């Protein structure tokens, strides 16, 4: 079997295996959201609403049918790519969440990429200067960044760069494909916040594995060959020490792609996380169900992508179809 065919088979198998996981996730969401006290019709109509009007809206939303039947119907159409329509706004769920996902993805992908770059640079530098002042400083900075709540940091950055210095806009969002420059300006602060918050743990991970790898003889051997320190760290230590950091970055990515609710709230970004939180609060069942199923799928795909990256880093790892 060629490596490509083997990879394809592996991907197919993994996707197939994730079907029960996704079904189970869908069931979880469904049960959880239906356990919530409160009624979308009631929330929409507010405190003064007439009970008859609430009941009518309830029927209109299709919520008067037995829950298992609703689940089966929903799942059936979900399998056909139809996630239903929002009970609150009447929008189709799939386009809605794809549109929201774009926002979240552009922030999260760039933030995790930047955090990983920071982590690689910081981790390698710290490992290289192990036990010296620079190492201590990097570890301290990483630890502190892990200890700062993201909403707090976001707010500080917003006040400093948005309100006081007026360098960057503070609210709103422009899709990158509409206007690249303005879009980027809106992304800077949320991406920076998220990158700083996530870089701490990644840096520590990178440093730890770089320290482990540094002890191995091939690193000494590279030095004995006359390789420069930069070459030693970048060519020999980095590729062998990167896997755990990559795993962690992947996990972070998987979780954040499902919505960085806090960051999205602070910076008023129309992202997936805010959509889910708002939908939970509004009891907008189809949106919550759709979003969380989508999130679970993203998580599975990100994990798969990460697993496919390992063989690139470590030739000893092969995918088994």
């Amino acid at each position: 079997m060629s490596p490509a065919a083997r990879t394809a088979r592996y991907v197919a198998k993994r996707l197939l295996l994730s079907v029960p996981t996704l079904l189970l996730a869908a069931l979880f969401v469904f049960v959880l959201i239906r356990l919530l006290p409160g009624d979308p019709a009631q929330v929409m109509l507010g405190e003064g609403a007439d009970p008859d009007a609430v009941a009518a809206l309830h029927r209109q939303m299709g919520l008067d049918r037995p829950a298992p039947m609703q689940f089966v119907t929903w799942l059936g159409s979900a399998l056909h790519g139809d996630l239903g329509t929002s009970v609150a706004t009447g929008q189709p769920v799939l386009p809605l969440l794809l549109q929201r996902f774009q926002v979240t993805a552009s922030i999260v992908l760039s933030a995790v990429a930047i955090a990983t770059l920071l982590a690689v640079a910081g981790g390698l530098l710290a490992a290289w200067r192990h036990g010296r002042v620079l190492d201590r400083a990097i570890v301290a900075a990483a630890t502190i960044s892990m200890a700062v709540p993201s909403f707090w940091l976001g707010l500080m950055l917003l006040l400093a760069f948005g309100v006081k210095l007026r360098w960057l806009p503070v609210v709103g969002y422009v899709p990158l494909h509409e206007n690249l420059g303005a879009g980027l300006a809106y992304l800077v602060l949320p991406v920076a916040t998220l990158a700083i918050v996530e870089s701490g743990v990644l840096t520590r991970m990178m440093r730890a594995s770089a320290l482990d790898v540094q002890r191995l003889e091939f690193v000494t051997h590279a030095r004995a060959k006359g390789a420069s320190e930069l070459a030693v760290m970048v060519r020999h230590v980095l590729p062998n020490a990167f896997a755990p950091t990559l795993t962690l970055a992947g996990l972070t990515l998987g979780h954040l792609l499902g919505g960085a609710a806090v960051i999205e709230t602070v910076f008023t970004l129309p992202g997936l996380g805010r959509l889910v939180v708002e939908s939970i609060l509004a009891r907008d069942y189809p949106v919550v169900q759709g979003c969380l199923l989508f999130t679970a799928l993203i998580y599975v795909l990100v994990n798969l992508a990460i697993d496919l990256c390992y063989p690139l880093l470590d030739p000893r790892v092969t995918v088994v179809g």
Partner: protein
Amino acid sequence: MPRRRGPRRRAGGLRAWAALAAALTLAAPPAAVAGETVLRARLNADIVSTDPGVRRDENTDAVLLHVVEGLVAYREDLSVGPLLAARWDVSRDGRVYSFRLRAGVRFHNGAPLTSAEAVWSLRRYLDPKTHWRCLHEFDGGGYAKILAVAAPDPMTVRITLDKPSPGFLSTLARVDCGETAILHPSSVGPDGTWRAPIGTGPFRLARWTRNQAIELVRFDGYQTLPGPRDGNTGGKRALVDKVRFLVIPDGVAAEAALLRGDLDVLDGVLPIETGELKRHADVRLDVHPSLDIYALLFQTRDPLLRDPRLRQAIALTLDIPGLARAVTQGAAQPNRSVVPVASAFHDAVQARIPAANLVQARRLAAAAGYRGQPIRLIANHRYPAMFDAAVLVQAMARQAGIRIDIDTLDWAAQLARYNAGQYQAMTFGYSARLDPSLSYDALLGDKQADPRKVWDDPVARSLLTASRETGDAAARTAVFDRMHALFLQDVPAVVLFNSARIAAFRANVVGYRGWPAAQQRLWGVGFR
């Protein structure tokens, strides 16, 4: 595999570069025409539709009332005045209303306003398939049933009711009914589905980017009434070329946007956020008392709280002015009465607020046999005022040895508990009701039939009926004063305050003002 990957990757790269180049050249910033004035205002959540009075919430009402207009509308003092109707006649039996339409009014598509559009609009609202918010007011469930809508001539609309109704016009004018706006039939598609509002308002809807912004453009063919702005009627002049409503859910972020100049008007500022704004010279605040009611509700059927003495004891622990000041940073009016402070019926009887008396509170609690049992008080984080009030109630009751534990639910859950009557106590907010009868109606009723009702007192209920049957102000004042006395005695709830609607705007904005109906109005608002 690696050998095959090379060229393909290069192709992908080229595509990406091409796309990037295209993005850079095509995506110019949104055209900012020189000299164009844009007023930017904030919504704390996206509107739910563009269909007035149908799929709606407060934000939707506020935005759409810039675009559409009804026959009649509220004036500043909440009385009803003409808008699209120039005048109206009521038949002697009070059942037939004839509205004479204003001449020269045009829809956004250029079509002139005639009785045909008005009849079409009203009949559409009365069709149950439309799901009009206020349908049940007119289908026999509410004050009066509309029997017929007719157009005797091109400029007259005639509505026939089954019985006389003093509240008919003010119901038509209601903001949450979408002012019963008159729309052009092209607002809906051939199959009757909603497309977009073609109204007669001073602005027309230009663009709705979901969850981000709604853009309104000045309607050049608008014909304003003479005189100054008066509620939702009077002179309605668009002083700017565009109004852009930005959806900014987070208060602090919105405030930052205002301070930075990304926003011109920030309506719905939370009282706790005003401290910061007051310190900025280029920001002005507009504080206007609201007709809503914040109250501490008790479940009078609860085994512990069924004893009025315990309820009285709790009420006596409360320093209501202090609480109102702390919760709203001094913006709200403390009020122990169901009749809002801004109401004309709020007189000296209602204005007297009993002072806190911890000694007596302890005595009453002991008399009621209270021995430190915890009382669960439901509150939510969605509305900070309800939450903060709960915190203060807890702290104040504690001073008299009454133990209150706060249960924080999300708003939907609290609402469900409210509707089912499943609580011991909760802090709750009633939205603005424009008449004290309506305010009392929200609380008072048969608990058996409607578990939402907080207060189930036969005398008070008959008084409520009496307050509706008369239009005489003095007689109604007397009724409300008696109800207030009963309310203070029975304490099914402790009204705490009527909140204030606070708006902040940049110093160069002129003409912005709040009003009792609270919905933000951006006509008559411009730049210095």
